[in-house]
């Protein structure tokens, strides 16, 4: 019964926690510029994410190791320093962007400039983490995040033609601006397969003390949770395609993206969009902040965990507080949240090969996985994903310059 409850909670919170600043911005831009044509990119990125999430959880449940800890042990510090520095840099920048997303949501509700909300939002994040354990953060914000199903409701109300939507799942060449199309396709992958998600998930699996017997819960949560979660991102794309594209509105700010809710929700549109953006970004900001503490604690061998009193893990607490302060400092200097998001997404793609390559080795190491190592099909898929990640990393910077 407890396993079923864990499964339901895991799937529900995955749905509620799927969209954040990266997925909203890339999906909204994709829809407003290319209609339904990039739905396949969301589906492909979701499949990639689900596979990596499942592997991260399996490693944690069987080997009692998180990704970061296992990479330090198996590959040593000379390799790990690359993904570690990259991930910390991305964490800080993405955290700034997520804080910006929450601040814009509050601005949409109050009319007061988003810069004024940066510090209060940062303080709220710190207070939530100070007083809450892992389950409260993960499940509480995930349940609140179900408000993002408004994107699915909006797409449903707009009544898109099913065959047109279906065609979007078949990769095709764009009929205009091919570089921009390719850039958005790669960006959707970068926004979906964030490194912080993988280490956060494996850390959560260790925190929640998942065992080998519950691997089916891990597998189902990974595939069903991310699968259903991606429907929300698809809802953003479909709504944007049906509302913004016919009016030739290009999404170059979150305020503009809020317009997509008007046909479906009328006078509630801005408030509802603000709730979706604010809660989605707040959830991601909490996860990124915690993950930065997890990452440093696991690499350096400290005691870590959100479920223990903060005093007992002073270095872990100090680490996530420091990362949050750095993000706030960048936020206070001044930035465009949408542009920063797109930079983070590109950086994520550049770092991706260094993050995914260790999976090929770790998932075949019986010291960690015992009899649960990957089979030939899993290894084949993983090799294909690693090659794909390397190719995307090569093309993303030229695409960012030419099509971003």
């Amino acid at each position, binding site marked *: 019964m407890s396993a079923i409850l864990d499964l339901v909670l895991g799937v529900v919170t995955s749905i509620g926690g799927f969209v954040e600043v990266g997925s909203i911005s890339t999906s909204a831009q994709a829809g407003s510029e290319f209609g339904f044509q990039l739905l396949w990119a969301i589906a492909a990125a979701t499949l990639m994410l689900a596979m990596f999430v499942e592997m991260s959880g399996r490693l944690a449940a069987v080997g*009692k190791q998180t990704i970061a*800890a296992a990479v*330090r*042990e198996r590959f*040593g*510090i*000379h390799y790990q*320093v690359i993904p570690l520095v990259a991930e910390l840099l991305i964490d800080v920048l993405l955290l700034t962007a997520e804080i910006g997303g929450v601040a814009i949501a509050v601005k949409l509700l109050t009319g007061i400039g988003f810069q004024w909300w940066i510090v209060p939002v940062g303080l709220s994040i710190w207070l939530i983490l*100070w*007083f809450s354990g892992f389950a409260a953060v993960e499940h509480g914000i995930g349940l609140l995040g179900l408000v993002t199903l408004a994107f699915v409701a909006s797409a449903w109300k707009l009544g898109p033609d099913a065959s047109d939507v279906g065609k979007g799942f078949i990769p095709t060449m764009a009929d205009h601006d091919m570089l921009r199309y390719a850039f958005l396709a790669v960006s959707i992958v970068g926004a979906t397969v964030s490194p912080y998600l993988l280490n956060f998930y494996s850390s959560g699996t260790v925190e929640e003390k998942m065992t080998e017997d519950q691997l089916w819960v891990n597998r189902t949560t990974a595939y069903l949770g991310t699968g259903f979660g991606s429907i929300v991102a698809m809802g953003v794309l479909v709504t944007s395609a049906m509302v913004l594209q016919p009016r030739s509105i290009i999404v170059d700010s979150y305020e503009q993206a809020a317009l997509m809710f008007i046909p479906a929700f009328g006078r509630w549109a801005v408030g509802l969009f603000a709730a979706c953006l604010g809660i989605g970004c707040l959830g991601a900001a909490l996860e990124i902040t915690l993950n930065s503490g997890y990452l440093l604690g696991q*690499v*350096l*061998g*400290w*005691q870590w965990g959100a479920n223990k*009193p*903060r*005093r*007992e893990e*002073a*270095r872990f*607490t*100090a680490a996530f507080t420091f990362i949050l302060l750095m993000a706030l400092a960048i936020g206070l200097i001044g930035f465009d949240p949408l542009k920063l998001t797109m930079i983070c997404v590109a950086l994520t793609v550049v770092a991706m090969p260094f993050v995914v390559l260790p999976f090929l080795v770790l998932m075949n190491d019986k010291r960690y996985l015992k009899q649960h190592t990957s089979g030939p099909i899993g290894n084949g898929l993983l090799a294909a994903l690693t090659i794909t990640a390397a190719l995307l990393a090569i093309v993303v910077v030229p695409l960012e310059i030419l099509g971003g």
Partner: protein
Amino acid sequence: MAARLGLIHDVLDKEVVDRHGREMGRADSIVIALRPKRQPQVTAIEIGPAVLAYRVQPIFGRLMSALEHALGIDEGRPLRIPFGDVLGISTHVKVDRAYGETVAAALEQRLRAWVGSLPGSS
């Protein structure tokens, strides 16, 4: 302890726990004594961010040492544990020490005083 031990594979970078199972850090370095006309001898493991940073690039190691000095936690660091005090090697390296009594805990104890002074920390 394993009859055949791979120092890099089985010890270096592995988590080190004290005799009570509490995390102390990772085996950031291994000390090997080179003796004339005799076999090299593994003498100790070291724990500390400065030796870890030194492994990445010596200049980072010097910077980390300077930072530890500035924070006033450099005395006795890095922590050097003789190999004879290793109690066992499995998923982690267990050593015959109590974490709180070693210099590895210096930063944790310093931060704990600050963190512990805030409401809701315990």
